[in-house]
């Protein structure tokens, strides 16, 4: 096919269709709401026991999970936290990942930059994927207790973006 000027014609109906399709995808993406959500609400981890001559026992929570949408390009999810006056340890790692590759365990520290959490989330036509959030709280005897120092309150943020 050729244009009226004699150049190869991508431009007529086909080109308009391609461009229109991109904007259609944008519209679908916008209309379909959050592409990443945390299911299960907020999390509380309570360290209550310790070993003489050793340290308090870590506590794990796996009650929440990420639900994220695959799309037409490879994506990744990063994690970061804000926890002013942090006293205790907190780590997170993904398990049961249905799309993508779980990164190694991430230590959550106040003010940290975004760190890879799930990478290489493959192409998919707006299908949803999930991953379990495995939080582990740790403390040492020398780090003290919440009665004297207060609880650590982390605002943990997960971000999905193009990789």
């Amino acid at each position: 096919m050729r244009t009226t000027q004699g150049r190869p014609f991508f431009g007529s109906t086909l080109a308009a269709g391609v461009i229109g399709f991109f904007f259609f995808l944008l519209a679908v993406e916008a209309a379909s709401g959050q592409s990443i959500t945390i299911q299960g609400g907020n999390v509380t981890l309570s360290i209550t026991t310790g070993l003489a001559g050793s340290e308090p026992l870590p506590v794990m929570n796996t009650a929440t999970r990420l639900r994220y949408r695959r799309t037409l390009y490879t994506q990744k999810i990063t994690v970061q936290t804000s926890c002013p006056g942090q006293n205790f340890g907190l780590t997170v790692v993904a398990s049961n990942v249905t799309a993508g590759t779980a990164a190694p365990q991430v230590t959550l520290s106040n003010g940290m930059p975004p760190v890879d959490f799930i990478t290489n989330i493959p192409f998919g036509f707006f299908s949803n994927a999930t991953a379990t959030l495995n939080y582990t709280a740790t403390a040492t005897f020398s780090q003290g207790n919440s009665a004297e120092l207060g609880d650590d309150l982390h605002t943990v943020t997960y971000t999905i973006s193009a990789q």
Partner: protein
Amino acid sequence: MMRIPYLPTLLAVAAVAYSTAGAQSHNHTVRVSVAVITALKVSSGTVNLTITGAGVIAGQDLMTVVDQSTSLLWGTNSSGKKVTVQSNLASPKYTLKVEALGPTQGTAAGQVVLSSVARDFLLNIGRSSGTCSIRYVGEALASQGAGSDAHTITFTIANQ
């Protein structure tokens, strides 16, 4: 017929716009709470101190025996703490003394005579996890004759 100039550019812009439009975030709150935790453990449950008379010096009334086979392990995440020691026997027949040796945290309070009243054993252990050896000294006077005392000894992490 529709004419689209700069088609490759438009396609690239659309693709880039699409691929960057999807960055989204979500957050939740994770609370980490640590209770007041104190833990104490003695390495062995039973210590026997036996004065047999071996090595007793003629003319000397006091006989002693020493045991240093056990240790104390502790952990506390509260500030301003110490360890005390006491026996369940208010008036034992023989004298039993105890002291902490080589604490990894805090300061040994020195040798104390065990009674039913709590006495300082370790001071200033603070927020720590540590160990020390326990040194018992049993004393008997020849004039006290034969017999035995069975102490139940209690170590306690207490406010300093």
